[in-house]
């Protein structure tokens, strides 16, 4: 106890020292004035004192649990697997609940609220898309926003020049973004993890800079205004009607993305992604063409980003390069990281927390990115698996009581 107080006090003093010139002082060099904010010392001190205490406590607990799990390598058998199966059912109920609530929600909510929920659901799909790349395949893609931009500009430009509509643009943008992902992927995917991160970041920035500077095609920084919203079977809806319609479109997209991701997770290709993440060398030694697996992940991730890009353009009826900065990628990444790498439910939960919470807790809004950043660090330190640990699909041996079935199996093979 005394030891802890001493340690935390030292840390508090240290952080007061660190933050002093930035948090307490603010100098205006032109007016020659200094703005003193002494009260901040108190906040920093108290904050550092308690946070360091909690930090130490959890770090200790984490180290202890690491050690104990090393010790009992064996004793995990049937009991855990039953527990896991049960959990999967829980997930299904949770998903059902979310779905029902989400379907009813727009009937009772203001247009503004509906719009916030739409945004959150867009991030769910983006998160699920990036989750394929980062969470499953373990490829740290920091330029994900580029594919989102490709989708948004595809719709914006196709509509501007050729008058193409929302629905036809969706598959075009999806395919275009996916091919873009594969094209970018071909040269970069043989790079090691951290280099891949930097190169994708570079690509993301290049795409944004090209959008900004290639005025002739993209209309530069001023962007493309007046992008139409989807029409409901040719009927023009009012503002509120449009929002509700968009809400259901994105809800459908969320469901499709969720189901698709879940199905992929327990499939040949999904397993090869996870194997790739776990150990690339062993993965290749098991006969998996790692380049193909990576390209598939990249392409599919980009596909979702492209589709949501179209949706984004329709919702905001305006696209400009400003919407596609690196920090957009970072936000999507923090959703994946917070939710749990590879976990579908985790992504939904994380998108809910990170996008909705700041909207409702207004005092949080200013600190949003600060909290995002801190959360990413805290998650990596304490719970690198994310809020919801991804539960692997359980397989049981199909009962061999029906001989016909087996026979059928063999006959269909030939």
């Amino acid at each position, binding site marked *: 106890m005394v030891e802890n107080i001493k340690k935390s006090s030292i840390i508090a003093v240290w952080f007061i020292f660190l933050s002093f010139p930035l948090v307490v002082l603010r100098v205006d060099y032109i007016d020659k004035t200094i703005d003193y904010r002494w009260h901040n010392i108190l906040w920093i001190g108290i904050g550092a004192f308690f946070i360091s205490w909690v930090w130490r406590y959890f770090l200790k607990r984490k180290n202890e649990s690491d050690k104990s799990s090393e010790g009992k390598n064996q004793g*995990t058998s049937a009991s855990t697997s039953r527990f896991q199966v049960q959990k999967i059912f829980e997930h299904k109920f949770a998903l059902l609940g979310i779905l029902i609530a989400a379907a009813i929600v727009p009937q009772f909510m203001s247009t503004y609220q509906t719009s916030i929920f739409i945004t959150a659901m867009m991030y769910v799909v983006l998160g699920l898309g990036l989750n394929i790349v980062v969470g499953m395949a373990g490829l740290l893609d920091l330029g994900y926003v580029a594919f989102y931009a490709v989708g948004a500009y595809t719709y914006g430009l196709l509509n501007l020049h050729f008058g193409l509509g929302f629905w036809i643009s969706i598959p075009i943008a999806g395919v275009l973004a996916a091919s873009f992902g594969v094209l970018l992927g071909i040269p970069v995917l043989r790079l090691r993890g951290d280099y891949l991160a930097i190169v994708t970041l570079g690509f993301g920035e290049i795409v944004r800079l090209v959008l900004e500077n290639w005025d002739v095609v993209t209309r530069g920084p001023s962007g493309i205004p007046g992008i139409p919203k989807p029409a409901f079977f040719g009927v023009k809806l009012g503002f509120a009607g449009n929002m509700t319609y968009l809400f259901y479109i994105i809800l459908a997209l969320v469901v499709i993305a969720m189901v698709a991701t879940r*199905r*992929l997770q327990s499939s*040949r*290709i999904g*397993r090869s992604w996870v*194997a790739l993440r776990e*150990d690339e060398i062993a993965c290749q*030694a098991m006969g998996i063409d790692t380049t193909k697996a990576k390209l598939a992940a990249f392409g*599919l991730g980009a596909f979702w980003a492209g589709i949501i890009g179209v949706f984004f353009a329709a919702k905001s009826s305006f696209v400009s390069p400003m919407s596609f900065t690196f920090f957009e990628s970072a936000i999507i990444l923090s959703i994946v990281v917070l939710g749990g790498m590879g976990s579908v439910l985790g992504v939904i939960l994380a998108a809910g927390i990170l996008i909705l919470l700041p909207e409702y807790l207004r005092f949080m809004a200013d600190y949003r990115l600060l909290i995002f950043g801190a959360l990413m660090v805290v998650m990596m330190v304490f719970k690198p698996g994310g809020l919801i640990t991804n539960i692997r699909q359980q397989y049981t041996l199909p009962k061999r009581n029906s001989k016909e079935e087996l026979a059928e199996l063999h006959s269909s093979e030939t």
Partner: protein
Amino acid sequence: MAVVLKTDKITKSFGGLLALDEMTLDFREQEIVALIGPNGAGKTTFFNNITGMYTPTSGTVEIFPPNQKSVKIQGMKPNLITELGLARTFQNIRLFGNMTVIENVMVGRHCRTKSHIFGAVFQTSSFKREEKESVEKSFALLEMINMSHLAGNLAKNLSYADQRRLEIARALATDPFLLLLDEPAAGMNPQETEDLDQLIVHLRDELKITILLIEHDMKLVMKISDRIFVMNQGRLIAQGTPVEIQNNPEVIKAYLGE
């Protein structure tokens, strides 16, 4: 007996350092062959050169898959070599720790199956059939190594000996005709080692495959090998039956020093 793999003067140098020096040897059908030698003799380097992890500086590696034409495989990508029927385990266990035991084995089925994104998303009937087959085959392999009751556990939670055995099952899932085991008994206690030697012989007899192992446990090597190759400083210094090797003065010198 027919030869299944033949190397001709394969050499590997790392920036002037000769790790493999003109290794010429062959393995035959349904043999258990051991590759032994002191630490740093180049045994794992040899493995890596025939499984495509490294490209030999010179020399050729030729395989003779059953009922197929022979293929020269030096410098091929590892996944293609695995597809051709060579499978391996790793000295420093490389399982997919956050996947379940059964999934680890199912990953091994990857190169023998072909469903892709479309099939998985739309749950086509061919996808379902293939999945079911994968599950059955993988369970059968787990039964063979006595681990089917652990199928749902994460690989990282297994005991050391189980992890080594799971690596073998995973490699077998790729339907190899030649299985390469890199120190399969490392870290096992005497009982586990004994189970392992029975397993290796059983696999050879049951699956009719050739097994090459790198091993330091001489008792195991002498007991189950048909032939033994001895390496020292990147070179092959002796080959023969266990009895011949035990009495070979070159080998004794290599192990005990001058």
